[in-house]
């Protein structure tokens, strides 16, 4: 680890050039999209919208052209996703396929797997979810118990995943599953691409505290998978999963979750903020600028083939603090109680993000996990 790895990395002009087109598309596509739905951001699910993005070439765009991608640079992809998130576009349907499953299949998949999944991902038509957490394995991921046993040339899976975002509306899950008996907890884990239409799978949505249904319990009961459902190397699942963490922890979705509220806040405050409003809004903008630069610096590291796991944890933790602080501070700036029915756009967005904010430091590694990683990187553990 090193703070010096945060090198200032401008987005190259050819990637920057995409921005105007994306903005124009979004201005049109979202022109009647309500503020409170923009607050949903990458939890907003709209299959049709994902297909439209696919048609524009903006899903899986960094994948090779032979698999349907655009061979775009990581910075070009960055421009697209940050514009989508800043506008509050509903990107959830293809989000996990674009961020994780696509690159993982490209990296570890067989030719058949690539053929089956990558072009459809790039069209914005094949949606993935990620099966990681289990009821007794939250932060302690290595303790998962879902198990696949070999039967002839098949795998038979039993167990349960939980908090699986979008399982109820995805086509596939990439699941981390125990395949070995090894005593070291991180060993003996493998990843499978599970077709969620197969028999033996029960998906039960979990209502969150706002009443919305984003995540699920998923039960596997004697689920039979073909041999080629495994992705990557049997027993190497832990390594495959942790290798993608830097991607998962440093993107713009790690600090833009509350930007819809910054927008309605500025509208609510008006053109002449008082001393308190001006200070807090300016301070948020400064931190936003800096977090984005840090995130871009990690992107540059990833593009260079490095593994900036420590730096990504720094971005994720600072970003989550930022996202969580916005609703907390916003409620101090306008005398306007939050509302879930009725009330102004700002009152509704405030209510929604106030309630969602606690989850921002849970997903993608809890605050405790991240700070532990940062401390270890400093040599403290």
């Amino acid at each position, binding site marked *: 680890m090193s703070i010096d790895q945060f090198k200032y990395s401008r987005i190259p002009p050819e990637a920057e050039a995409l921005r105007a087109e994306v903005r124009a598309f979004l201005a049109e596509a979202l022109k009647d999209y309500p503020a409170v739905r923009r607050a949903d951001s990458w939890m907003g699910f709209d299959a049709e919208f994902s297909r439209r993005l696919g048609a524009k070439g903006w899903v899986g765009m960094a994948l090779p052209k032979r698999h349907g991608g655009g061979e775009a640079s990581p910075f070009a992809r960055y421009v697209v996703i940050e514009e989508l998130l800043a506008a509050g576009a509903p990107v959830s349907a293809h989000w996990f396929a674009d961020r994780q499953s696509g690159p993982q299949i490209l990296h570890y998949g067989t030719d058949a797997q690539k053929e089956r999944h990558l072009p459809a991902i790039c069209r914005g038509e094949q949606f993935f979810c990620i099966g990681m*957490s289990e009821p*007794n394995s*939250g*932060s*302690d991921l290595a*303790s998962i118990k879902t198990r696949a046993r070999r039967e002839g040339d098949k795998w038979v899976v039993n167990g349960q995943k*939980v*908090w699986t975002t979008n399982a109820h509306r995805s086509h596939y899950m990439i699941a981390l599953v125990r395949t070995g008996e090894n005593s070291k907890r991180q060993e003996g884990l493998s990843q499978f691409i599970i077709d969620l239409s197969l028999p033996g799978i029960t998906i039960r949505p*979990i*209502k*969150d*505290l706002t*009443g919305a249904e984003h995540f699920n319990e998923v039960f596997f009961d004697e689920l039979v998978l073909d041999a080629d459902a495994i992705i990557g190397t049997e027993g190497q699942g832990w390594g495959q999963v942790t290798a993608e963490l830097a991607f998962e922890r440093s993107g713009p979705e790690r600090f833009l979750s509350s930007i819809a509220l910054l927008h309605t806040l500025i509208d609510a405050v008006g053109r002449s903020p008082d001393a*308190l409003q001006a200070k807090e809004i300016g301070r948020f903008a400064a931190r936003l600028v800096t977090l984005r630069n840090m995130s871009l610096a990690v992107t540059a590291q990833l593009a260079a083939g490095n593994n900036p796991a420590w730096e990504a944890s720094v971005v994720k933790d600072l970003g989550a603090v930022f996202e*969580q602080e916005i609703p*907390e501070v916003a*409620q*101090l*700036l306008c*005398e*306007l*109680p*939050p*509302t*879930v*029915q*009725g*009330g102004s756009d700002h009152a509704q967005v405030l*209510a929604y993000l*106030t*309630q969602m904010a*606690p*989850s921002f*430091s*849970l997903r993608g590694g*809890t*605050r*405790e996990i991240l*700070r532990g990683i940062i401390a270890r990187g400093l040599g403290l553990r």
Partner: protein
Amino acid sequence: MRDLFDSSVERLFSDLVTADAVLACEGGEWPTELWTAVEASGFTLALVPESLGGAGATWADVCGVLRLAGRFNLPLPLPEAMLANWLLGASGLAAVLGTLSVAARGTLRLENGRVTGAAVDVPWGRHVRHVVAVAAGAAPAVVLLPTEAATVVRTVNTAAEPRDTLKFEAVVPLASAALPTALSADVLKLGGAMMRAAQIAGALETVLAMATTYAGERVQFGKPIGSFQAIQHQIAVLAEHAAASVMSAEAAFAESDDRLARLPVMAAKICASEAAGIGAGVAHAVHGAIGFTHEHALHLTTRRLWSWRSEFGSLTDWSQQLGRALCGAGSQALWPSVTAGVLAAYEETAA
């Protein structure tokens, strides 16, 4: 009287105010039986003088009742009804039986014996029969208004509690009286702030208990998460702020009598509003994903904390009022104000 109140209310609430009952109300139902039971217990009239048919209790007597209302997520305008009847009594008007709330914000004016204007953020406005407000006019007046005469614009807070706007057009109040000179025109906002401070204190007692229990039970990395120092310290901070809220609410109620003790009430709402955010944040961080589900009861309380802190004046609103008063009085007035519990310079200019 305090102990008697506390124990009877605790018994009543723990029998009737279950999580299912609260959720049913959040769905939009008015809990007729629960209201009837609470009203039958007499608490809506607790602060009404005995001469006017009430229990003649002091504010200090009922602090525990309000804390318990917070602890149990009571989905009723009991705090509002108590405050409304107190103000009616203080104004020499008869108390009201039946559903009752207060209007602390808005544009109500009393002119020629009729009230016109909007009452904003009226708790349970759509469900109650009566609303008490202080209407502007030649002189501020306490008015009792029938809600059936109002147009209702429905609004709901993060706890799915109605906070409606009621629009009145030349409505003759059911009763009215001049606001007593000892009371300020913002008496209902101040009183509401005091109520919410106590409710927040009670709610924080609930989330503290839930977080402590959960941390002792949930196992990760082979031991209860409560044995991790980071979790311990977060819960300790939650406990500190819960204690500060309880203390400041108790002080505000204890110092209030015929008039509300402005400085202690402001302090209570400021401390409670700050504690609400901290407490809800820690409780959710400790509970992790499970606490984020609709099925788990944690959100019943945290969603209330997130709204109550903003109601009847946010931290900022009251802090700015207090800060302006202190700066206006000069630095030498700070400490005497703290020890006296009264901001002399402010009392002169505020009303």
